[in-house]
């Protein structure tokens, strides 16, 4: 009797790539729902457009590359890229902005480098940066969060704007509002210090809480999803921990030194894309550092860059740039942070 042969080990118990991707997607759900609640229909449109374009362009390019389309398309990686991108883009992003970002992410950042596992840069962040640099104005188009002023525009108004560029009577200003991070930055540049801005009658509803109405909840729910991912063993705990601890330490140091002109650590931790970055973007395994020590350096590096760009850079939130810059450094970090192997006493 002849037997078939296979390499060892003959047993396996692993979360598959597909399962990992979908667990990350599940972990995004609470934060995404909160995002929709606070920022309206635009978030949903972003998601729909990004998912359609990402999966569509992935299918086309897989076909062009003569790869099997079905299985790869369903591995969940393109879907995850689409969702991360959509949730990072402003809630009033026009359809073409989301489309350009999605194509850049999937075609340029992912497949031109060889597809899943071979991309040196986080695809979602590459897509984000492309539109950020090309269309800075459109990238500020956030709705007013629920509970501030009139809140976000209704379905039809949003639909008309996103897909046809038709504005309601009051123009764009009637439906959009700067984010807290953006606002603070502009105000600081006009020499209004932080407490002055926060107490300003015109802006105070936006700062009615710790780090901005709506924003803190969205961040808190991403944090919850992230902790669940760590518990499930999908995401390594080192990068988020290093990132958050470093961001809090750095921002706290500056806040203590000059309270009037530097936001608090809590504000930094719970505003903008901090938590989305900490658990869902910085932890993208393909582009992050993979050694245990390297992950600490990598997380801390992103935090430092985020703080630098937020405080002194030209953009309101620096997560995309920080992540891409550390992506560049990841191979170098990995090389110099090889662990000492068993019995290696002299290195």
């Amino acid at each position: 009797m002849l037997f078939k042969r296979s390499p060892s080990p003959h047993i396996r118990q692993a979360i598959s790539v597909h399962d990992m991707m979908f667990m990350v997607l599940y972990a995004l759900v609470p934060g995404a729902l909160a995002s929709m609640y606070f920022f309206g229909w635009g978030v949903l449109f972003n998601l729909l457009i990004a998912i359609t374009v990402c999966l569509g362009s992935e299918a086309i390019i897989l076909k062009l590359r003569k790869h099997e389309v079905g299985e790869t398309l369903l591995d969940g990686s393109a879907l995850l890229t689409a969702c991360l991108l959509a949730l990072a883009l402003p809630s009033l992003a026009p359809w073409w902005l989301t489309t350009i970002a999605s194509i850049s992410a999937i075609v340029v950042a992912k497949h031109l480098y060889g597809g899943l596992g071979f991309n040196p840069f986080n695809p979602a962040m590459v897509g984000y940066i492309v539109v950020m640099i090309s269309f800075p104005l459109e990238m500020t188009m956030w709705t007013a969060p629920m509970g501030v002023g009139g809140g976000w525009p209704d379905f039809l108004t949003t639909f008309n704007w996103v897909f046809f560029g038709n504005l309601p009577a009051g123009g764009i200003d009637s439906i959009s509002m700067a984010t807290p991070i953006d606002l603070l930055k502009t105000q600081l540049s006009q020499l209004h210090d932080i407490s002055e801005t926060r107490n300003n009658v015109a802006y105070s509803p936006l700062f009615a809480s710790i780090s901005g109405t709506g924003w803190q909840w969205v961040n808190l729910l991403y944090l919850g999803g992230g902790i669940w991912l760590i518990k499930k063993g999908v995401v390594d705990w080192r990068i988020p921990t290093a990132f958050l601890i470093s961001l809090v330490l750095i921002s706290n140091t500056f806040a203590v030194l000059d309270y009037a002109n530097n936001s608090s650590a809590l504000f930094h931790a719970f505003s903008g894309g901090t938590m989305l970055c900490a658990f869902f973007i910085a932890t993208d395994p393909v582009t992050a550092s993979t050694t245990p020590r390297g992950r600490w350096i990598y997380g801390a590096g992103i935090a430092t860059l985020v703080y630098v760009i937020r405080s002194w850079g030209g953009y309101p939130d620096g997560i995309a740039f920080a992540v891409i810059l550390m992506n560049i450094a990841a191979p170098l970090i990995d090389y110099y942070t090889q662990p000492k192997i068993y019995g290696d006493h002299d290195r």
Partner: protein
Amino acid sequence: MTHERDITAEDTLARFDGGLILDAQKQLSTGPAISSMEQCKEYILPLQQHIGVISQPLIRTGDRVLKGQMLARPGDLVSAAIHSPVSGVVTDIRQHEVPHASGLSDLCVFIENDFKDEWLEREPLGDDYNNTSSSNMRKVVRDAGIVGLGGAVFPAAVKQTEMNVRTLILNGVECEPYITCDDVLMREHAEDVIAGADIIGHIIKARQCVVAIEDNKPEAIQAIQSVIDKDGTGFFKIRVIPTLYPSGGEKQLIKIITGEEVPKGRYPAELGVLVHNVATAVAIQRAVYHDEPLISRILTVTGNGVRQPQNIEVLIGTPMSACIEHCGGYTEDSDELIMGGPMMGFSLQSDQLPVVKATNCLLVTADIEQVKHKKHLPCIRCGKCVEVCPVRLLPQQLYWYASSKNTDRLIEHNLFDCIECGCCAYVCPSEIPLVQYYRYAKTSIWQQERERKASDLSRQRHEAHQMRLDKIKREREDKLRKKRELLKKKTEAQNAADNKSDGDGSSDGKTSKQAAIAEAIARAHTKKAERNKAAEQVNETATTQSEAKTTPDKESSNTRETDK
């Protein structure tokens, strides 16, 4: 670095990095007691059943051999003897498939059983070993063909060094799922295990012996403990360690028990530690107390693909098919035949292979429990492999460099420290057969190394050859040159001599020539003068007729006579 004190039961156990908690599946085969098998008609004994040099056969085709007779002696220091498991006749010595990951053939001795079970005369040493020197005891172990039975099959006598070893660790961990041969051996032969350990302790002059057993084997722990209690010397201690794969790996076990890591590239003995498997201890006990060489072992036949999983005592050389048959045969959905455990074992192409010294387990998987090996996904660098690697390697980097055949980086990332435990591949979400990549990379680097050495050698040979040729050429040229010089010298000397005579005679020569010419002219002149004189005389004789006539006639008659 060596640990300075004895290990006590109160010491906290260390743990190694990584590792996995696996579904042990031990209960499948621990039910029935160890059964012995009926003897077979034919036994096949590969000459290479150990790490090291192949054994040298001592018999020829047609020879009658007795049970326990040495068929082949160790081929070198690191090698092992092979003995006949039955009495019978050597029918053949030829290439035959052997159980090896490569699936290749090797030289085997075929023995036809005469079913007389006639032993070679035995003289057991018994308790006398206490009065026998270590070196003589090592010879006993060596002559019995004993190798490490935990899986590595390294010659035991070679391992029992003369270095200062404080602690003997007896490995009863058996961390691989499904395998239970050491477990049941400890349960049923605890006294032999301890007796064997005592002999090893004597050989290596150990101060203490620590028996390490995983906490999922309570019966074995109890059996060993009761023997240790009976012994009462305090030499033996038992350490129950948590179940974690691969705790049974030598280096991992040393870390758990002593808290220290064997320095890279060094031997455990340099830490004052020696690790032997429990089955090896029993083999040594049998060699000493029964003068019985290693001709049998306990084998676990298990898995859902076999009808009656159990442990059997089997003679080395028994065809695997007979073992499976003894265990009720295959089930309908049997799928793959694996020698060893599911983590490190390798699948076999057929069951027409002999049981060898390394065969601790035959695992027959059923269709359902078998991993489906499809085309694997790309590595997403999730780093799960890093978390579980017991050696703290970076499997994802090794994979990257192995696929790109980057030898320098592979060595830099310590490829050769990989123990091939399979933890990385077990957790890989992309289902990459990582260990296979590393094995392939190791083999190709070895191959490169061999080729480099071979080419170095042939280059050296070529250079030496070239040098020899050059030397010969140079010598010949030297000779020729010398000859030429000599000749030149000679001719020069000659010339010099010639030149000398030429030199002082150059003007003389001329004068002598001129003199000769002058002489000749003078001669001619005198002749002319004489002729003229004669003519004058003729004229004179014409006047005196009579005289003149007679003289020329005389002359002319003389001339005529000479003409005749």
